[in-house]
């Protein structure tokens, strides 16, 4: 899950980025409102963590512009102002949730996961698909109840595919989910991760749609017969 972090304080920004990365998020960090808008225009992020007191363009302005432009991605506001009026203003401008500074990193991660679940239309925190179970909170993967060890990138890739069974994700889309701006991506990285996943979870879980990308088939979809 890739998150855009818009925070002007260097210490807070660095800490949040490090903390969320440890929780398996891919985090891109911008320090002012204009940079946030540029990053949002790329449409690669799954959620936005927005500080309200951004220089150059305030968080509320960024949020309003986003919603006016039809951008429905979940936005979580980080605010130092705990007056009810400020929180109401943020929510009314189109935010999905808020945390008041100082906040807890684990809580922030949990709220982001909840926003992501709602975004993909799920209520169950455990992502289940056939015999596979994915727990985004603990980063545990189980096949038929038996734990399977996945790397952070493999987990993120599987999560992206399982979030919308039946949808084909291109290499660019998958790369965008796995790597932030500061990560260097090797040309065949996605293939390497998919290969590893197939080895650990079974060859027929992830299907290759040639020239387009990869998908996991919907459970009720007719299985391709050989």
């Amino acid at each position, binding site marked *: 899950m890739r998150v855009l972090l818009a925070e*002007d*304080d*260097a*210490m*807070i920004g*660095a*800490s*949040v980025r*490090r*903390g969320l990365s*440890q929780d398996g998020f891919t985090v891109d960090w911008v*320090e*002012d409102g204009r940079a946030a808008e540029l990053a949002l225009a790329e449409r690669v992020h799954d959620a936005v963590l927005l500080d309200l007191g951004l*220089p*150059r363009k305030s968080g509320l302005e960024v949020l309003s512009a986003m919603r006016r432009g039809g951008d429905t991605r979940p936005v979580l506001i980080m605010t*130092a*102002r705990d007056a009810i009026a400020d929180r109401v203003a943020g929510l009314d401008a189109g935010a999905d949730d808020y945390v008041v*500074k*100082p*906040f*807890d*990193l*684990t809580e922030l991660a949990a709220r982001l996961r909840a926003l992501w679940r709602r975004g993909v239309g799920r209520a169950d925190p455990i992502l289940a698909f056939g015999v596979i179970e994915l727990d985004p909170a603990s980063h545990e993967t189980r096949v038929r109840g038996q734990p399977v060890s996945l790397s952070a990138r493999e987990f993120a890739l599987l999560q992206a595919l399982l979030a919308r069974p039946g949808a084909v994700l291109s290499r660019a889309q998958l790369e965008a989910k796995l790597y932030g701006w500061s990560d260097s991506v090797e040309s065949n990285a996605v293939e390497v991760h998919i290969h590893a996943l197939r080895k650990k979870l079974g060859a027929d879980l992830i299907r290759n749609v040639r020239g387009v990308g990869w998908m996991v088939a919907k459970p009720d979809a007719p299985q391709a017969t050989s």
Partner: protein
Amino acid sequence: MRSIRRELLVWLLLGIALAVAAAMVGTYWRARDEANALFDYQLKEMAASLTDAPFAAVPAGAGTIGAGSDAMVVQIWDRNGVQLFLSQPRRVLPQNAQLGFTTLSTESGPWRVFSALAAEQVVQIAQPMSARRELAASMALRTIIPLLAVLPFLAVLIWFTIARGLKPLDRVAAAVARRSPTLLEPLPETDLPREVQPLVGALNDLLSRLSHTLHAQRAFVADAAHELRTPLTAVHLQAQLAERATTDAERAAALGELKDGLERATRLVEQLLTLAREEPGVSEVPPASVDLAALAREVIADLAPLAGAKGIDLGLSSTAASMVKGGADPLRTLISNLVDNAIRYTPTGGRVDVVLADDAGSVVLTVRDSGPGIAVEDRERVFDRFYRGNGAGGIRGSGLGLAIVKQIAERHRADVELGTGIDGRGLGVTVRFTQPIPGSRCREELSSTQKIV
């Protein structure tokens, strides 16, 4: 306790009593003059009637006119000085040869005597002056008595009039008493007597100033609380990261960041305390003489390592007269904030100059740098608390440095001006102390420019 009502009553009654006494004395004097004229005329008439009829012999006991102390005494002599008649034998009147009116002093007080010469006899009629005084006194007393009778009524009238006049004061007092410490709306100024209006006006003026100060204080506390949240959030997050660290290296790095975060929070708290301490009216500026050049040298020595780390050429150039009146600690903070800011915002390899000069008797401190400077439109706002420019070079301070400088300068009656720095670039902050101390000159030569770094 002093009471306006009591004082007014006492002084007014005293005044009235004095006026009554003056009226009494005046009446007495006039009545005596009139009595004198009247009795003198009477004496003259009586003498005239006595001289008309020649005396041969006067039967004893006759001739007593009236009785008591105002009784007149008649004495008749012949040419040879032989007393022919004395109306009251017990009274001894001197034989007064002087004709006309005379006043004699005798053992029984002064007497008025009229002597007339008729035929072969001298007729002398005398009357004691006391008779006239008694008449005058009784006349004066009769005039005064009604006035004295009215006096108690006057006292009561004054008492109630004063009470009525002071009622608006009671109303104002009650209105002030009803006010809560946070409700600082002006008192109603309608329907007030002219004497109370200035008091209420002054009170309202004070209330409005208080309300303004209170409002500013509240805004400051709210801003301060908000600003404290940011470094505290950073510390909070850094502590969580340190907790999560799984390796020693990770933990060491996280703890290092936590320490930075704590230092930053501490610095902000210190700056807030400085602001609170330098708040106008909190404490008096000490009247000691402070050598700005010595303070500047201290500050530069303290900050030299910071400048050195960035390869910044930091130096002091001072001339004579750098003594100002004020507190050494706040003035050191002022210089330190300016130099620290200049070093922070000046890119590596730049230059920061601290200049002390004497301009027409004022000590002028200038800190110039070769940094990015401050846009003209931002120059007024940078003195506002917590105002930060739009990310000058990515450096984000607490937004308090220049606010503190301004506040300290104001307390020392110094003006702060922002201009351009070195070679028309960068920022130059000029602090002009308009209160030089005569006769105290710092012996420092123009050429004594110190260079550190």
